[in-house]
């Protein structure tokens, strides 16, 4: 079944927790895969996304992997107006594991393309 998010693109600020001036980013749901502009830039490949609906809205979950930068697990909720999104970045090195949370909010940029 086609998701309500499929074919949609959201744009808004997205940055690390505590960051004063988060950069604009775009979040795209296309062909059953989720991607963000910054992730594509960093080498994270688009990945399949899962959705479920509850009283708060339509939730989604996707885990994007990069050969050099680790993984980012994105999850968010779309309430019909905006997409609240959280990204948990994890990068493992032999001496430690970096974990960082990114937060953002996207406004619908484009309607379904098909």
């Amino acid at each position, binding site marked *: 079944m086609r998701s309500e998010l499929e074919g949609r693109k959201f744009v808004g600020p997205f940055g*690390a927790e505590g960051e004063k001036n988060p950069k604009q980013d775009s979040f795209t749901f296309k062909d059953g895969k989720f991607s963000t502009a910054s992730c594509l830039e*960093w080498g994270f490949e688009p990945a399949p996304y899962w959705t479920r609906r509850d009283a708060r809205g339509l939730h989604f979950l996707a885990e994007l992997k990069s050969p*050099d930068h680790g993984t*980012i697990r994105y999850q968010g909720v779309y309430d019909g107006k905006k997409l609240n999104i959280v990204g948990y970045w994890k*990068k493992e090195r032999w*001496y*430690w*594991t*970096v974990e*960082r949370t990114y937060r953002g909010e996207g406004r619908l940029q484009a309607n379904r393309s098909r």
Partner: protein
Amino acid sequence: MLNREGSIRWARIFVIGLAFGGLYAVGQFVTGIVVQQFDLVLHVRSEPMFHRLILIAGAAYILLLAIPFMPGVEIGITMILVLGPKICFLVYVCTVFALIPPFLIGRLIPSRYCVRVLAFLGLEKLRRLMEEIAPLTADERFAFLVKNAPNRITPFLLRHRFIALAVVINLPGNSLIGGGGGIAMLAGVTGLYPFPAYVLTVALAVAPVPLLISLTALGF
């Protein structure tokens, strides 16, 4: 009034003090640069650079800590302060590795060179002592030093030399008596520490601080 020999001795001590002061200042300067480099924010984009910086800082830490009288330990502390308790493991591993080369150098330095250095410094009593113990084996050195120790504390420290080493390595401000590198080198020069026992002592001696920080961070 000082005689000529006394004047030369004080001049030598002054020059050596100046050299060590210079080394200390260089160490502080390098430490300052490293501290500035860590003052960045860790992001996906900057992580590879951070990774390289951490490895460079680790290498600098090993190098500075291994050099006698260099305040290398500040880099380790800074790494923990800036990067958090997660970096404790790396700092711990670097600390243990840093204290091995100076010990081995100390072990490999022929006693005659130590005697020459002590003579140059005008430390006659120590020079004579070094000359006497130079041809002895480690066990013979230990017996000789305990027998000829000037007070009651020295034989106690010699008998518990591994504990003494652990205490001195952890002593705040030990850079004034040579720092980790200087202490390790001296430990090697004495010939009283077998290599595996020395490594084990160092591994245990430097563990409490990073372990305590890590456990505190985990909520223990």
